[in-house]
């Protein structure tokens, strides 16, 4: 009834609202009684306040005022809305707006309550759920919320699991949603891709994104994540295609700028990349990924102070941004302050305890500080949590080498080689030859001729160790002949299988490398 009465005013105001003339919209909605009109009225007032605030910031009267600029409308809105709230006159949208206002006033606890209420009243309004997502910081908080039991809750839970880095749970939720009939939803597909990106399962994420692009070719959302993946894999043509495509769709979108920035960065045009990240930030200063990425670009340009600044900004926006902490650590590492950067790497590690990159970085710092015990721990842990770059074991082996712990070193090299070959792909790994060379020499020292010669032969396959491998082979041949001629009884013990001799001797002997499985 009321809706019908307010329809004219509402339609007029909605048109003004769509034209972003908020004050005008609010003016024409003054006397309206219907819920819909009331929401639009309040929302226009809110947005008008926000807009004015942003405009004010530009011409503030100097630094004194910088922090003072506030949305003046907020408090009035709060008073009015709280009155209505007390009288239980607010509908779902009204509650949502009330929550937003409270959040803007930093009254987080009240805001959460109101958003939960909004979700109960109007479970299908995703905005309230999203706002709730932003306010919940850990799993514990989530447990204590009493949420409405609808299918929207499943979406919300999946989303917040992704945010809280609980990827396994998130993927499960999404899978059950797909099974329940949402298989065509591009939103779910994109969220799954993002989740895979978060656990650095790059191949899966890439394939899902490609699928997504096929289904939804004009999508801009989430494409920044896609470009990150392409960047990590150095897929230049794909990234270039993506960048051009997005630029055609809409070039003034944060995601587009980010993709272009990544594209330039991959082409080593770091100034241009930084420029595009800055543009992204101008479009949305809260888009924190760009701060971090800009930091990376400044690092590439060797502008460390600007990089530090960018990273600090990123941290200010979100304290839990592990990449920014990691970036700060890297910056100080470049400035040759290994002790100083320990703190930053530790912070990053705290945020991502199972990420090997931080652990390797920590290990490297400890190594530089000559704290070899700690360094060993770090590398070992990095290997244990699943090393992404496969460098931890080599570094660990080298440390053992330095400390003259040849057995452990050999073990590490063996594990490393097994790791590299078991992964299936043949990546050019410089350290493989080093590993084989060390193993050859190690077996040579232990007088395990067969294994030594096998490793030496492997060495010959690499350019840098070819000569050494050949020399070692010759030596082995020579010694073998000598050994057979002079004293067979002594050499017999050397030919015992290593596993047996390991039982006899107190020192742990390395079991010989099973080379049959290693053939590339």
């Amino acid at each position, binding site marked *: 009834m009321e809706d019908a009465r307010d329809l004219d005013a509402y339609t007029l105001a909605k048109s003004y609202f769509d034209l972003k003339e908020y004050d005008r919209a609010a003016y024409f909605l003054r006397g309206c009684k219907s819920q819909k009109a009331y929401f639009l009225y309040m929302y226009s007032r809110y947005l008008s306040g926000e807009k004015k605030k942003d405009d004010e910031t530009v011409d*503030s009267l100097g630094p004194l005022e910088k922090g003072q600029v506030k949305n003046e409308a907020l408090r009035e809105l709060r008073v009015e809305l709280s009155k209505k709230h007390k009288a239980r006159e607010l509908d779902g949208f009204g509650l949502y707006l009330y929550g937003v206002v409270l959040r803007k006033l930093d009254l987080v606890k009240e805001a959460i309550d109101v958003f939960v209420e909004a979700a109960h009243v109007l479970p299908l309004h995703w905005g309230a759920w999203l706002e709730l997502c*932003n306010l919940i910081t850990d799993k514990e908080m989530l447990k204590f919320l009493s949420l409405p039991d609808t299918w929207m809750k499943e979406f919300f839970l999946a989303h917040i699991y992704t945010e809280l880095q609980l990827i396994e749970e998130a993927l499960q939720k999404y899978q059950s949603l797909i099974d329940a009939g949402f298989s065509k939803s591009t939103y779910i597909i994109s969220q799954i891709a993002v989740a895979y990106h978060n656990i650095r399962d790059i191949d899966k994420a890439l394939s899902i994104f490609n699928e997504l692009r096929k289904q939804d070719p004009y999508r801009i959302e989430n494409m920044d994540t896609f470009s990150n993946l392409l960047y990590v894999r150095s897929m230049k043509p794909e990234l270039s295609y993506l960048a051009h495509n997005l630029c055609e769709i809409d070039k003034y979108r944060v995601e587009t700028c980010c993709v272009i920035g990544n594209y330039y960065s991959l082409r080593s045009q770091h100034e241009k990349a930084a420029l595009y990240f*800055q543009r992204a*930030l101008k479009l*949305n200063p*809260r888009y924190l990924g760009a701060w971090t990425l800009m930091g990376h670009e400044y690092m590439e340009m060797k502008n460390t102070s600007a990089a530090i600044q960018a990273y600090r900004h990123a941290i200010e926006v979100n304290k839990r941004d592990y990449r920014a902490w990691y970036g700060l650590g890297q910056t100080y590492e470049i400035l040759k302050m290994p*002790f100083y950067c320990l703190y930053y790497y530790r912070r990053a590690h705290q945020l991502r305890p199972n990420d090997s990159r931080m652990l390797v970085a920590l290990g490297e710092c400890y190594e530089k500080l000559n704290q070899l015990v700690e360094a060993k721990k770090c590398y070992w842990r990095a290997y244990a949590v699943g090393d992404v770059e496969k460098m931890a074991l080599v570094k660990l082996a080298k440390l053992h080498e330095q400390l003259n712990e040849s057995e452990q070193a050999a073990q590490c090299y063996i594990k490393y080689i097994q790791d590299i070959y078991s992964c299936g792909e043949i990546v050019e790994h410089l350290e493989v030859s080093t590993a084989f060379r060390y193993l050859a020499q190690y077996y040579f020292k232990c007088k395990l001729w067969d294994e030594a010669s096998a490793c030496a032969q492997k060495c010959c396959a690499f350019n840098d160790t070819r000569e050494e491998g050949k020399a070692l082979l010759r030596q082995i041949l020579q010694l073998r002949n000598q050994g057979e001629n002079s004293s067979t009884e002594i050499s017999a013990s050397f030919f015992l299988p290593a596993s047996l001799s390991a039982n006899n001797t107190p020192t742990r002997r390395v079991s010989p490398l099973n080379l049959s499985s290693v053939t590339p």
Partner: protein
Amino acid sequence: MASVHESLYFNPMMTNGVVHANVFGIKDWVTPYKMALLVLLSELGRAGAQLGLLERRRLNRLLLPLLQGPDMSLSRLRKAIEESCPNLASSVHIRIKLMAEGELKDMEQFFDDLSDSFTGTEPEVHKTSVVGLFLRHMILAYNKLSFSQVYKLYTALQQYFQNDEKKNGIDETDMELTNTDELEGKMEKEELDIPLREEEISCGGPLSQKQAEYFLSQQASLLKNDETKALTPAALQKELNNLLKFNPDFAEAHYLSYLNSLRVQDVFSSTHSLLHYFDRLILTGAESKSNGDEGYGRSLRYAALNLAALHCRFGHYQQAELALQEAIRIAQESNDHVCLQHCLSWLYILEQQSSDSCVLLEHSVKKAVHFGLPYLASLGIQSLVQQRAFAGKTANKLMDALKDSDLLHWKHSLSELIDISIAQKTAIWRLYGRSTMALQQAQTLLSMNSLESVNVGVQQNNTESFAVVLCHLAELHAEQGYFAAASEILKHLKERFPPNSQHSQLWMLFDQKIQFDRAMNDGRYHIADSLVAGITALNSIEGVYRKAIVLKAQNQMSEAHKLLQKLLTHCQKIKNTEMVISVLLSTAELYWRSSCHTIALPVLLQALALSREYSLQYLASETVLNLAFSQLILGIPEQALNILHMAIEPILAHGAVLDKGCAMFLVAKCQVASATSYTPQKKAEALESAILNLNEAKVYFVKVDCREQLRDVLYFQARLFHTLGRMQERNKCAMLFRQLHQELPAHGVPLINAFK
């Protein structure tokens, strides 16, 4: 929908895609307060010759603090002007009122007229004078404003004026009870204000730049000089968080937050704040000069150095060393000798933890003098003196060195170091056992007006050196038996350095030590035992030593011996000679208590040799007392008397009252013992003098309320009177003895066989 209004944000730090690190470089912005000042200046110019000489002078003196100080409200400004010239104040007020209640063009006209004061053949204001510079800055800043900014400035001025009016108006409305209309308006306002909660109120309002700077520097200096007057840690942190919320670029606030976290021993947040500060500092440094000596590279070096200092303060010596190495490496790479010098002095402090070589320190002092860093140089000298004192260097050399460094201090007016120097002298005199000299030095410091008070008006009296001196003073008084005075001093200390402040541990230790000594004197060993735990918490070595003493007093000889042996080896390892000698003395005492005087002798001789070598005179004379006692028991009282003559003088001059009493008692005993071989007449004389000495001892023991010893003295005196046939005095002594004996439990130790 959320992203719609998020994207409306605009970051003021970025213009034209370039990120400005710190807008704080620019300090001149037109604010309503500044405009009021401009009005004042123009009124001053207009009034010109009408002002009297006195008024003019007062106004001129007022101007500088007004120009440089933080923004203040209109009424306060008006009051300040009124104090020097009431006429002017009202005319200023009227002009501001006209401007605020008028139109925008009034303000524009005002600024146009301002520049007139420079023109003319004889301008009112010189372009380069303080006032001239201020005027020109303001005109420039005003001209730079955009249209909307000008309008905003005008509304700000109106508000500034109205706020003031309102404040004055409140009193009036209360009395008049004006029409309901206004009341209703007020109600609505209140309604707006009521639902504000604490969080909102706490972040009351942003401080202006100058106010923030003043706040920070004030709190920082208070933290350094007089912690009790600074805000409490929690309140200060709240203020800082508030400040940072509004001015996230205010890096100094992070540093203060670091200092504040240090106060409460919070490693985590202090590290966080320190690193944040330097991250910010690096930004500002980068703008001025990149990588140069002054800018960014420099702050990097000091960042590492500060981190080292932080770890050192928390006792993470290994971490500190790593950080320091880093600082040294970076400083070396960029040839920053001053920074290297700072590193060197920290390196010395770290080295001190592991070894006692002073090569580094000597080197540091030399270098510091060479680079003209008086502060570091004399700090180095002071550390060196301290180390040398422990290493047993002769006193005259040490005092000479201190005198030289004092010269440096006075020359550069390093008042903080002067205080430290005096405190150090007090401690050194105490170490040597010259209580009168120590007393004198302590009084010097306490009655000296520090230089700071002349300079800033902040009484610098809550530094560590004051705490040290006061603690020594308390102990000196307690030694002389003035327990009331000592507890008075301790009460004062408690007020000055409340229990959670930086230097509170010092007085806590001294307080417990004095209480312990008193309990031991009274023979209330259970109380002493309960104090041991507290002492151990503050100083483990001292605690173990006291524990052994309690055990010894409770006749648990073997436990005490075990403990003392352990302590001895530990102290020898860390070269704590003072404690080694004390331990040796206690061990010797244990031996003679178990009647093993022959074993005690070599231990005592060792202690004597050590205390002579390190010129610890007080301990030496105490050793001599022990030695004499052993000799007495071993049957050579003449020899004992001989060496007693050596020790008695310094003990009477500098010793504690208890020791004086013991010494006199011992002398008497020796006299009696050696008198056995004398002729009757001579013997009587000797006994008479012994009685006199005993009387003196009695006086001393009464002073420190040491009743056990008093009982022994009385017993001994009664025996002497008996020998001399003076029955009346004998009976009196015997009666007193009996009274005491009934009060006190008898311990297993034979009465005469102990001198302590």
